[in-house]
């Protein structure tokens, strides 16, 4: 049944018309098929409409098929703003700044390591600090912390944890210029000092997978992917550091919105004109947190490689773990996009949405120039994850953006109620998937049915042409926070 007030444009898009809510400056577009449309929450539709009221929005207020209610902006939201007339909003980035995913390929086949999955999962659990308030193996002094914020993954590579190839295969080469460590609060420094190289809690994970379906042989070949191959996916962000930066700047932006007389339908949409001192400060602090997150994933990748070497008792060359790509899915970036035939600089907010640049884009490394940017889409721990690539149509329609995951179908509380009395770890083991989690309730909150089916979500962005399916990955073993 169609949602009242929405208009279906075609099989993959519905429109939130400009009159859906008072004050909308443009329409909203939600990428959903009829199945996912039935799962839309009223509040998330309101949030798409709310974003459309913000000054200087360019094009439509967009939402990807993994849409669900967030704070201020919906999760799965994409919105671009003019640099002169538009705004920047921390709510359009999210609390976990540069939460993202990286995918590693290997030389191993599923059958090579099937008997060792439990050992590998246990090694991950031992080697990668995981869970609520987990502390890393590192404790940054003030000077090192500032370098992480300025240089991101580059600093980690300089310390010997990785190589230049890793940086080439990371969005923004693992470091956005323009970060300013002087704009970070003492509290954020304190929260971040012991958390670098840690996975954290909630939906963050490190997962061993294998490829069970290839959709695009040419792209898969360029990415070094083959059937039955073992891959490893890492999903985490900027930990307490990023949360604190967001919290600090929400307060700044509340005052800025008042100062610049920006009417807000929701306080979590607090924002400032992009061309203002408050916006410049937030951008510089957000970039610092984004760099922290890239450094975090770079360290964790190192622990993953160590776990494989220790468990399989073989050399790194035989294992062949190397980074395919690392993507941010909570970030705001200044980018150039073609709008109505004119190339314009815009600030693109992606909150629970992934950049998906087309073949030939200058920001892509040489090896991916002809296939487009790799897009890594994690699903739930029981079903599947996907690799896709960016497309020209995505550049034209969604500012080079696509979905970021499955999207929750149940709240954490709902999931806990549904899981009561069940041993989720055993259910997963019966499906051939070894899971370990630190938190008592994590497995219940993260059980597969708590999420939408990622295959449906990915089919929508594929059919809409926002990105193109390359391969499907099935889970074998996972650690969660």
């Amino acid at each position: 049944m169609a949602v009242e007030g929405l208009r279906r444009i075609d099989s993959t898009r519905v429109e939130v018309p400009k009159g859906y809510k008072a004050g909308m400056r443009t329409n909203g577009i939600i990428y959903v098929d009829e199945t996912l449309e039935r799962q839309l929450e009223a509040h998330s539709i309101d949030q798409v409409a709310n974003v459309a009221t913000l000054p200087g929005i360019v094009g439509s207020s967009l939402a990807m098929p993994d849409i669900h209610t967030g704070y201020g902006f919906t999760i799965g939201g994409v919105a671009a703003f003019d640099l002169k007339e538009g705004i920047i909003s921390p709510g359009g980035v999210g609390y976990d700044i540069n939460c993202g995913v990286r995918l590693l390929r290997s030389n191993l086949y599923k059958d090579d390591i099937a008997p060792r999955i439990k050992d590998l999962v246990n090694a991950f659990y031992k080697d990668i600090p995981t869970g609520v308030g987990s502390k890393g193996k590192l404790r940054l002094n003030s000077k090192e912390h500032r370098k992480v914020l300025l240089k991101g993954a580059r600093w980690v590579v300089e310390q010997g944890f990785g190589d230049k190839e890793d940086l080439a295969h990371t969005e923004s080469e693992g470091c956005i210029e323009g970060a300013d460590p002087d704009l970070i609060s003492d509290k954020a420094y304190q929260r971040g000092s012991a958390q670098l190289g840690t996975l954290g809690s909630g939906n963050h994970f490190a997962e061993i997978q294998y490829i069970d379906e290839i959709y695009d042989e040419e792209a898969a070949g360029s990415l070094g992917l083959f059937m039955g191959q073992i891959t490893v996916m890492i999903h985490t962000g900027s930990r307490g550091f990023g949360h604190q930066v967001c919290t600090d700047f929400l307060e700044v932006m509340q005052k800025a919105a008042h100062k610049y007389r920006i009417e807000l339908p929701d306080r979590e949409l607090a924002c400032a004109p992009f061309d203002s001192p408050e916006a410049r400060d937030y951008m510089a602090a957000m970039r610092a947190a984004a760099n922290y997150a890239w450094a975090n994933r770079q360290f964790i990748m190192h622990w993953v490689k160590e776990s494989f070497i220790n468990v399989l008792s073989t050399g790194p060359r035989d294992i062949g773990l190397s980074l395919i790509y690392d993507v941010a899915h909570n970030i705001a970036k200044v980018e150039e996009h073609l709008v109505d035939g004119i190339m314009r600089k815009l600030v693109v907010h992606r909150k629970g949405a992934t950049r998906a640049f087309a073949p030939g884009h200058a920001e892509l490394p040489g090896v991916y120039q002809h296939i487009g940017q790799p897009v890594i889409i994690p699903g739930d721990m029981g079903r599947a994850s996907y690799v896709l690539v960016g497309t020209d149509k995505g550049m034209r329609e969604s500012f080079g953006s696509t979905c970021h995951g499955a999207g929750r179908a149940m709240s954490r509380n709902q999931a806990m109620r549904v899981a009561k009395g069940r041993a989720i770890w055993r259910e997963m083991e019966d499906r051939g998937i070894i899971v370990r989690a630190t938190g008592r309730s994590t497995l219940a909150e993260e059980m597969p049915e708590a999420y939408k089916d990622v295959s449906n979500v990915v089919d929508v962005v594929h059919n809409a042409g926002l990105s193109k399916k390359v391969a499907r990955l099935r889970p074998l073993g996972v650690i969660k926070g």
Partner: protein
Amino acid sequence: MFDTYGFAGKVFCISFQGDAFRARVSGGLFDPERNGQKLLIKAATYHNLSLRKIDAHWEATVIFDI
């Protein structure tokens, strides 16, 4: 305190003095083996934030990011 030092509070004594309050918290270092890991509040949000007076009391609704 928890994120930075791993401090987990166990006993909380809170006394109110006019518009202010004084809190004394005692506890120790968090031990995941002994203490068990539950929810951690990562941020307090403005999402659906409300404050209303009910008779002689004020009631606040605050949604935390966990």
